[in-house]
C-alpha cells in the first residue's frame, strides 16, 4: 500500500493507493501539477508524508533522496540522454536483456540503435516510458506521458502500462490533459481545482449527472 499526504507551495494531495492502482491528476495548466509530481520524487522541496510499502520516503524526520526512492519518472520533455542509443537509454538503470524485452513489449525494437535526435516525438515518449519502467520502480510518475501519441498507439501504450503495472505491482501517478486518458487508465482522479481525490467510477457518475 502507498500513502501520500504531501503539501507543495500550491497543492495538497492526500491519497492511498493499493498495489497496481493508478491515480490521474487533472487540472488546468500552471496550477502546480508538475511541481507536485516532482515533489513526490524529491526533485522539489515538500512537506508531508509518503509511505510506500511500509518504507518511509518522507515525514517530519526523513526525506529520502531522489536516488533512494524507487521511482520511474517520465518527464514532459522526455529527458532522453542524447549521447546514448535507445537501447542504452533504457538499459541505463537496468540490463540490456531487460531493455530489449521492454523494447519488444512497447513495439519499438526497430529503434534500438537509433539516437534520440533521430526519433519522432511519439517514439521518444515511448522510449521514455519504457526507460522509466525498466528500473522496476515501486512508483511510476508520468508528466503528460501520452501527449505526443496518436490514438491507437496511445491505447496500446496505456494497455501495456496497465499490464506491466499488474505484473510488477507498481503504483502509478500521472498527469494528463485528456480526460479520456485519465478515465481509461486511472482508478482514482485527483481533481486539482476541487482539491479532492475521487474514484473514477464516481467521477463518471458525477459527469453523467452534470
Amino acid at each position: 500500500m502507498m500513502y501520500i499526504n504531501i503539501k507543495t507551495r500550491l497543492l495538497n494531495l492526500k491519497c492511498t493507493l493499493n498495489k497496481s492502482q493508478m491515480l490521474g491528476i487533472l487540472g488546468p495548466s500552471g496550477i502546480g501539477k508538475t511541481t507536485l509530481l516532482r515533489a513526490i520524487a524529491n526533485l522539489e522541496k515538500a512537506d508531508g508524508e509518503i509511505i510506500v510499502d511500509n518504507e518511509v520516503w518522507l515525514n517530519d524526520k526523513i526525506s529520502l533522496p531522489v536516488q533512494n526512492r524507487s521511482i520511474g519518472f517520465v518527464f514532459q520533455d522526455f529527458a532522453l540522454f542524447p549521447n546514448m542509443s535507445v537501447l542504452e537509454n533504457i538499459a541505463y538503470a537496468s540490463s540490456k536483456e531487460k531493455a530489449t524485452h521492454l523494447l519488444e513489449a512497447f513495439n519499438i525494437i526497430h529503434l534500438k540503435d537509433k539516437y534520440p535526435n533521430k526519433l519522432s516525438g511519439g517514439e521518444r515518449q515511448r522510449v521514455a516510458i519504457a526507460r522509466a519502467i525498466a528500473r522496476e520502480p515501486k512508483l511510476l510518475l508520468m508528466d503528460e506521458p501520452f501527449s505526443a501519441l496518436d490514438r491507437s498507439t496511445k491505447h496500446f501504450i496505456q494497455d501495456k502500462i496497465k499490464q506491466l503495472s499488474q505484473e510488477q505491482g507498481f503504483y502509478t501517478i500521472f498527469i494528463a490533459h485528456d480526460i479520456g486518458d485519465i478515465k481509461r487508465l486511472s482508478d482514482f482522479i485527483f481533481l486539482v481545482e476541487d482539491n479532492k481525490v475521487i474514484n473514477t467510477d464516481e467521477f463518471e457518475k458525477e459527469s453523467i449527472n452534470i
Partner: protein
Amino acid sequence: MDSEPFLISFELSTITMLILGIVGIGISYFLAFKRSIIVDILEPIIMSPLVLPPTVLGFYILEIFGVSGSVGKFLNHFDLKLVFNFWGLLIGSIIYSLPFSVSPIIAGFRAIPKSLIEASYTLGKSKFHTLLKVIIPNAKYSIISALVLVFSHTIGEFGVVLMVGGDIPGKTRTASIAIFDYVQELNYKDANISALILFSIAMISLIFLQILKRLQER
C-alpha cells in the same frame, strides 16, 4: 635556433592541459551546479587571471611560493622549492590558465538540460555516476575546447613564467621567453622562426575550435 625552449613549452603545456582537464571538470561542476555564497566568492577569484596583468599574478605567486613566502617557507622544511624551476612554471601556468579551462566547461555544463541530470537521479544513479555518464559526454565539445584553449594559452605564456621561473636556459626558458631573448640579442632570424611556430600553433588551435563549434551546432 635552440629547440630546447620549445620542448619545455610543449612539456609545460601538455602537463598543464592534462591537470586542468581533470581539475577544471571538478571545479566547473561545483561552480555550475552549486548555489551558495562560496560559489559567488570563488568564481571571481578563479576568473581573476583573465583580467589581472600576468606580472601581478606572477608576483603574488612568487610572494606565496618563494623562499620567504608562506607556502615556500613551509616547503623549505622538506627541501622543496617551487620557484625558478619547472614545478614553479607548472604551478604558475595552472593558476594562470585555470579560467581558460573552467569558463568553457561551466558554459557546457550549464547548457545541459536540467531534466537530463534529474532523469539520471530518478533512475537511481549517484551524482558522480551522472557526472561521468551524462554530464561529461554531453559537454564533450566544451571540454575539448577548454583543453585546446589551455594548451595554446600556456604555450605562449610570457609574464607569469618569467616572474615565477626566471629565464634559466634548459630549465625555465620557454619559447616565448626565447623570442624575447632573441630580440634582445638582435637575432631576428631565430626570433622570426620561433614566432612563426607559435603563431602557427595559435592559428591551428583557433581553426580546430571553429571546427568543434560547427560539430556542436549539428
